[in-house]
Structures are given as C-alpha cells and as structure tokens.
C-alpha cells in the first residue's frame, strides 16, 4: 500500500504546532530535570530559526509512557513526548528526564523528529546518551558519523546539535516499512 507523501512544515507552523510548555516534559524545577538542548544548523553553519524538534522517550526506568496529557500538562505526569521550536539563533531546549533502556542492556536514546522550512519531509534521528553499551546502529557507523548521534554531557544536562547538512552532518534514519 502506498503511503501519503510528506510536505514541508513551512514557515508558519508556529500557528498550529507549538503549545504552552511543549518543551517541558517535566518542570525545569524538577529535582531530576536535565536540559537537553542544542542548535539546528544548515549547510553553512547558520542557525535555523524556523525548525521544530519533537522528542519521544522512555522514562528513567526504561518504561515507554502510555499516559495522555502532553498538550495540557499537569506538571506531574511524565508523558515522554514534547515539542520545541528553535529561536532566532537556531537553538532549541527541553527540560526532561534521562531515559533508561527499554530493553535491558541496550543503550538508551531519545527518538527525535526534525521539521523545518526548507525540509521537504521530516527527518528522524536518535540522541544517544554517552556510554559504552553495544548498539546495533552506533557500532555500524564510522567514528565521525557515530559521534553525530551522541549527546555531550554538561553539568546540568545534555548538548546535542543537529547539522542538517555539510560538515558533521547528523545521521538521519529511515525504517524498513518506509522502503520504497
């Protein structure tokens, strides 16, 4: 069965997609909150001021959340999903919890979707935590490509830049059921 093609999110997605506290998967004041942040940059290294990042993740125990309430957050329920638009410098940030491994022994990651004006279709990637567990995706990549998928630990969080193109271009993913 053929599936519907994507189209760019365009320059006016702020009208329909962002919502209050979309980037706060937990309140920034939560004792275990980490700031996951970075810049989205284009092929010339310029910040992309009209990108949108979606984050989907397990909780610290590795459980996949099934709770509703991402759009109207109650401040207590961890739904595992959030949305952040970039600012004028291409910077995005989330307040969230560090995900645990969904299957034991696997390296935890955040699942990420990237949208932007100029991107004809959304892109998928993963943000891995620093670590040394084996991983089927990371272990099959050249070291310089692998490095694009691993966040850098900071005193109060995790840094992850997204390079849409060019030097240090982030590894973007496709999945078997999307094969043509």
């Amino acid at each position, binding site marked *: 069965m053929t599936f519907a093609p994507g*189209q760019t999110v365009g320059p006016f997605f702020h009208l*329909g997609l962002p919502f209050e506290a979309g980037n706060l998967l937990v309140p920034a004041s939560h004792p275990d909150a980490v700031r996951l942040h970075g810049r989205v940059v284009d092929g010339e290294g310029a910040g992309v001021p009209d990108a949108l990042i979606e984050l*989907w993740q*397990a909780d610290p125990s590795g459980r996949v959340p*099934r709770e509703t309430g991402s759009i109207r957050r109650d401040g207590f329920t961890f739904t595992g999903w959030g949305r952040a638009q970039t600012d004028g410098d291409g910077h995005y940030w989330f307040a969230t919890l560090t995900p645990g491994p969904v*299957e034991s022994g696997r390296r935890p990651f955040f699942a990420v979707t990237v949208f932007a004006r100029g991107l004809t279709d959304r892109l998928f990637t993963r943000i891995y935590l620093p670590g040394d567990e084996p991983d089927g995706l990371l272990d099959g990549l050249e070291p310089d490509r692998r490095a694009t998928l691993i966040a850098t630990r900071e005193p109060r969080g995790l840094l992850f830049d997204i390079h849409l193109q060019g030097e240090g271009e982030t590894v973007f993913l496709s*999945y078997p059921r999307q094969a043509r």
Partner: protein
Amino acid sequence: MTTQADINREIDDLRGSGGPQPRRDYPPYRSSVLRHPTRDLRMVDPEGVELWAPCFGAADIDDAEADLTVQRSGEPLGERIVVSGRVLDGDGRPVRHQLVEIWQANASGRYWHQRDQHPAPLDPNFIGAGRCLTDGDGVYTFQTIKPGAYPWRNHDNAWRPAHIHFSLFGTDFTQRLVTQMYFPGDPLFELDPIYQSITDAKAREMLVASYDHGLTTPEHRLGYRWDIVLSGTHRTPLDTEEPLR
C-alpha cells in the same frame, strides 16, 4: 530574479526522478538547498520507544478545536467547508483516537502569523489552527473555511496553491507525518515547487482532497473528503496495546 519559467524548467528536469516521497534535495524549492541532508538516510530496525507513539486523550483537546469557524466572537469570511476523512496505517487499519493538527491561511491567503507580510487582510474571526482526535474508525473532521492561495518569495511571481497543513501520528513513532492537503483542480499545481517536490504524479495526487457532495450540508457548507494513509507500523497486529515491561 528567477522567473516562473525558470522554475518550470527546473521542475521539468526533475520530473519522475524521486519516487513517491518528496525529494529532500529539490533546488526549485530554494529554501531546501542548504537544509537537506546530503548523505543517504541510514536504515535501522526500530526498537524500544520507536515502536510506540505518544498517546493523546480527551483532556488534551477541546471539542471546539475541531471547528475553526467558532473560535472567535464572529463568523469568519470565506467559503465554509468541512474536511473529513480516515487516517489509516500502511496495512489499511484505522489509526484510532490519535491526534490530528491543522493550520492554514484565511480566505484571502493570509496567515495569522507575524512573519506573513502578504498585504491581504487578516480576518479577526479566523485564526486558522485546529486539533482533533480521530474516532474509533480513524475518522477526523474539521469545520473551517477554504484557504486562499498566496504569494511567496521563492521566485518572481511565486504563488502557493490553496492548502491546509496537516500533522499526523500513527501507532508507532516511525509513522509521523506532516504534509499538506490541496483542493481539486488547482491551476497552481504545475507551478508550485513544494507540491512538485514529490516528483511522482500518482503520489502527489494522494494529497488532493475530493469534493464530496455527501459531506456538503444544505445552505451551509461544502464537503471535502481526504483519507490519509501513513506508512506501515513495525509492530505486529498481535501486539497488545501495552508495551512489554
């Protein structure tokens, strides 16, 4: 400045070159030049959280958000329409109780957005954003007005065909889709590098709604039907509604 004739030639040169999904590298759409990945996408088997989609529920949304004509004190200007259809996964199963979000220009082709400088009038009674959840059969329905075509700065005298932006989720993370719904018979289709970034004609047509007189209500609004097929889920039908833990 690049003319429409220049863009038409570029569109013609790339016709049929990209398969059923849009080309990420599509120079006729100028903003794509520095923003598309140049490396091939890396194929990976989804695992863990990627086998699940976020859940949304009645508490996330007001019923009134599905009617874009009642969000302000008065009636918006323009042609009242209803847009309805089913969200299906790649195996034809309905995507139930899942979030659908839309945004669009008003009847004169102006967005309620500070970056839209098109000197067409804003309508104080139309913002142009809506949300709903699909029902138990995967059906969504929005009441709105037909958006206008509008100019943009891609090239000289560039105009976008009238469209409604749609944001959709499936039952796993990999099915996420943001796309645009168009109206049948638009003369701007052939000229639009965003629509034509899908270089396969049959695939493009999947984004065009059908006029449906059965959805039209007498003396009130015209009906358009648009069914949306997402890619296939990576979970098997036998999987339960709860993740393994």
